């Protein structure tokens, strides 16, 4: 039984069918004029051998102009699976995504350098020293592998989290470019039984992490049936360029048939037009180019339509994920993916705010609600992320879980049918006939059935705002609750076969 996710019966869409069709046509035109620039030789050869026109461009870095004809794209859209399964260590945590079914799975992400600790020092009122309050103080520091383990652990217990993307960049002294991948995969998989998605630091480590996943899943075939890991690569650099190294990684992952996200992240205003029609035509062309390449490498390889559009902020030209347009672009991308019936990877909840608080709540809740309502299958909803994805705060992730519970409840389908209405008519007549005219008695049968939403779990008492402290308590509770680690025997085999994993991660040996 896979996870349920949030099924959005009537997804919110911004574009009419005709507008989606127009964007598709514009993207097809873009792919032949101006086409793409590829800095990766192999991609050029693959596309060329299937009929794309290719022209070499002079310059410091060798590159090629590639014009991808429409029928190549259409064929790829045909072979790309319309249903993608992302497996999990615990098979009950598998995610099954149908391109035409708006069932939303919520996933963490992305990789931040900074980990935000929270502390609650006591402050005394200057005017009245008998008055004391505890104020949350946030302290940024460099993320470590222990943090990654902790966040995987807490996310295992957060109900609304359906899958895990590593949240923090591990910057321990004993982590190098060579051993980073195996360590981040092991730390995440060992502390979390949900699906694990990641990018790769070094392509050389691809075989090692795939082998690790095979050992955990129970062999090569078992991993094929239950792909407990998947990958994400930003092979496209906007506007319209295939990057050399990420494209190489992308091709290699496709060859192995593991699920992969084709992601493009244009910034409206700098690397894409700021107008909705323009950025949509471009990002759609970019993602389709990636999907086409993937399907040519291995027809039928599972891909997700990955869209991470963002608008530039006008005061710094940095990303403004909190902007309203960013949500609009995302929703349009969800619709385009559904237009092609390819499962979508979308983004919400990324905020501009640097610390948890009112701004972060408003920004994330807004985009979380509207983007969820649009029905992406795989929603990277930035659990715990702050400052445009550059800071991770576990406390924020606990808060996010709570508001996603509200969104899930909100998106439940209304029950309005004949038997229900008949029962209601009887209820109305019964109550109106009483002297007190109160329906309170009829609350009781539904009170414990889960049909009534709960109060905000971190509600303070009286005038005190205790949200952070209560959420922090919850976080500590979740950390204290055990997780199911990889078993002793498999752990031993992983440490035996795969070089570079830090010995202190072996819970059976280090005694921790």
């Amino acid at each position, binding site marked *: 039984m896979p996870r349920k996710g949030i099924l959005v019966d009537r997804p919110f869409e911004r574009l009419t069918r005709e507008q989606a069709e127009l964007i598709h046509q514009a993207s097809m035109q873009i792919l032949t004029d101006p086409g793409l620039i590829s*800095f990766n030789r192999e991609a050029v050869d693959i596309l060329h051998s299937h009929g794309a026109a290719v022209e070499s461009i002079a310059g*410091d*870095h060798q590159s090629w102009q590639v014009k991808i004809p429409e029928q190549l794209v259409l064929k790829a859209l045909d072979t790309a699976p319309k249903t993608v399964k992302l497996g999990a260590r615990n098979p009950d945590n598998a995610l099954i995504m149908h391109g035409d079914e708006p069932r939303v799975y919520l996933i963490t992400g992305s*990789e931040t*350098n900074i980990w935000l600790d929270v502390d609650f020092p006591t402050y005394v009122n200057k005017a009245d020293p008998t008055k004391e309050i505890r104020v949350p103080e946030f302290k940024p520091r460099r993320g470590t592998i222990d943090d990654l383990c902790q966040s995987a652990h807490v996310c295992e217990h957060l109900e609304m989290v359906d899958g895990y993307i590593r949240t923090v*960049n591990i*910057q321990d002294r004993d982590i190098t*470019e060579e051993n980073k991948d195996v360590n981040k995969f092991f730390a995440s998989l060992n502390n979390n039984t949900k699906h694990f998605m990641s990018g790769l*630091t070094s392509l050389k480590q691809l075989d090692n992490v795939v082998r690790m996943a095979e050992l955990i899943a129970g062999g090569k075939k078992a991993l094929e049936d239950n792909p407990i890991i998947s990958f994400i690569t930003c092979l496209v*650099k906007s506007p319209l*360029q295939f*990057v*050399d*190294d990420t494209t190489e990684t992308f091709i290699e992952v496709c060859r192995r048939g593991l699920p992969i996200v084709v992601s493009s992240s244009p*910034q409206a*205003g*700098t*690397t894409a037009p700021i107008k909705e029609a323009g950025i949509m035509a471009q990002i759609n062309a970019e993602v389709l180019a990636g999907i086409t390449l993937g399907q040519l490498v291995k027809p039928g390889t599972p891909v997700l339509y990955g869209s991470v559009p963002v608008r530039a902020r*006008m*005061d*710094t*030209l*940095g990303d403004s994920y909190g902007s309203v347009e960013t949500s609009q672009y995302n929703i349009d991308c969800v619709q385009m993916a559904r237009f092609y019936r390819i499962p979508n990877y979308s983004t919400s909840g990324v905020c501009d705010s640097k610390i948890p608080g009112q701004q972060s709540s408003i920004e994330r809740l807004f985009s979380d609600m509207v983007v969820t309502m649009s029905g992406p299958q795989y929603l990277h909803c930035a659990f715990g992320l702050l400052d445009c994805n*550059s800071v991770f705060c576990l406390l924020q992730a606990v808060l996010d879980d709570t508001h996603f519970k509200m969104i899930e409840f909100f998106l439940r389908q209304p029950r309005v049918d004949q038997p229900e209405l008949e029962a209601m008519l009887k209820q109305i007549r019964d109550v109106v006939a009483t002297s007190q005219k109160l329906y309170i008695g009829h609350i009781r049968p539904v009170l414990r059935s889960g049909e009534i939403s709960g109060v905000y779990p971190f509600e303070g008492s009286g005038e005190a705002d205790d949200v952070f402290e209560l959420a922090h308590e919850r976080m500590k509770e979740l950390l204290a609750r055990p997780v199911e680690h990889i078993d002793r025997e498999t752990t031993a085999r992983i440490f035996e076969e795969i070089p570079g994993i830090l010995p202190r991660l072996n819970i059976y040996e280090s005694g921790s």
Partner: protein
Amino acid sequence: MSKDIIATIKENVIQGRKTQGDVGIDDSLAGTPGVVELLQQALKSNVSPQVIISEGLTAGMQVVGEKFSTKEYFIPDMLASAEAVGAAMDIMKPVLESANVETKGKFAIATVKGDIHDIGKNIVAILLKGAGYEVHDLGIDVPTEKVVEFVKEEKPGYLGLSALLTTTMTEMGVVIKALEENKLRSSVKVLIGGAAVSEEFAQEIGADAYCVNAFDAVKVLEGY
């Protein structure tokens, strides 16, 4: 007449109109000459380059800076103005050289090896050029040896390094080490920037400064 041209150059810098075809903020200027055309006229009428720079270009940029700080202007406005000034400086480069006028300094800029992100780097380049620096953009994914070679040959006063990825930021440290090994480190101030980078990281790898954004980079340079 020369006063008029200088004032018009200044106005077009403020409007961010590089050439005749550009749209400014004020619609009524559409079709009139931009900074480049005006500059050519001014040079033809023998207006002194120093006056063009100080009373036209720099004075215009100053107004733009003020408008930006009062939030009347946004970055795209500022960049348009800086681009106009940059284009003007390109035209005047030979004139200034022959007149022995010193530029503000030579600035080399590169996105490090393995990293292909260049929005930030390009913005810094535009702004510095607009501020009157002689900017040499080495591009993206630039190998360390190439950076070192450029510093050795061209002797820039400043070197700006950019990286967006957590995986490539360490290359900045590699460049600084290579400069040290080639005894070039003291000849050049190294400024770093990019999403993944921090003040702390700059200190750790021995850079001279960390710039949060492009304006910060200009500010840091003005401080030297």
